[in-house]
């Protein structure tokens, strides 16, 4: 296992590469999800307010 983590001496280059890839993938996933949640909340809030005024 430690040999695997050692990556033949290139651990300092291999693992950051995979780590960075993971960070970028997660960022691309979280970003739109968070934006979706924000948008939905904003639109619903506005719709509710408009509905109250109509009554």
């Amino acid at each position, binding site marked *: 296992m430690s040999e695997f983590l050692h990556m033949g001496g290139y651990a300092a280059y291999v693992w950051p*590469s995979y780590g960075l890839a993971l960070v*970028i993938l997660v960022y691309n996933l979280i970003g*739109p999800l968070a934006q979706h949640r924000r948008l939905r909340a904003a*639109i619903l809030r*506005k719709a509710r307010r408009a509905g109250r005024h109509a009554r």
Partner: protein
Amino acid sequence: MGIKRFFHQMGSPQYFYRVAGLWIPWLLGASLLLLVIGWVDGLVYAPTDYQQGDSYRIMFIHVPAAWMSMFIYMVMAFSGLLSLVWRVKMGEVIAVSCAPIGASFTLLALATGSLWGKPMWGTWWVWDARLTSELILFFLYLGVIALYGAIEDRRVGARAVAILALVGVVNIPIIHYSVEWWNTLHQPATITKLGKPSIVPSMLIPLLIGALAFKLFFFATVLMRARNELLERDRNTRWVKNLLEAEAK
């Protein structure tokens, strides 16, 4: 005709929103599954390269990321073309959604190229043809993102992005060729140690699986962003309100 009807239906934001919502979980699931398989295969089972040792395993990230950076630009330009020439509204939504994802994959290709270059060349950065092209591509993406961010009206901004993407796609081959030309003149040929390692099937398979995983991931996230873009654009329309209120119940 099937394809014509498909485009017509996809032109409706409501329909697109719904169908994209059905596809996203499957695309994302398949992508993550392939990613785990590809990375485990690449990190554990693929043999050590006799020249580069284990450092070549960065290739399983770097090369797919570089492919994606080009592929996403092509998708962006093609969507832009669809919106400008055939007035396919969804084209500009897709084009705009492509840019941040493309930029992030380009950044990944640059950073992993640098991380791979350090043990191979001894320096973090070399003005080699591929890295330089990738850097210019990154600037092209940043230009698209900045332009879209600067224009207040989203529809106007999206059309400007479509044109810029098309201008960029005409220029990319020229830029690529000129950088290759420049590189062969100004670099000693021996430096291309980071050329393709002699690739055997046991290395090729995780590479292709990884590339497929990235591609499906891109499709999933571009649809997610396009859906947000639609909500934002149509936030004052009835279909958005009805949809969100139905979801909220």
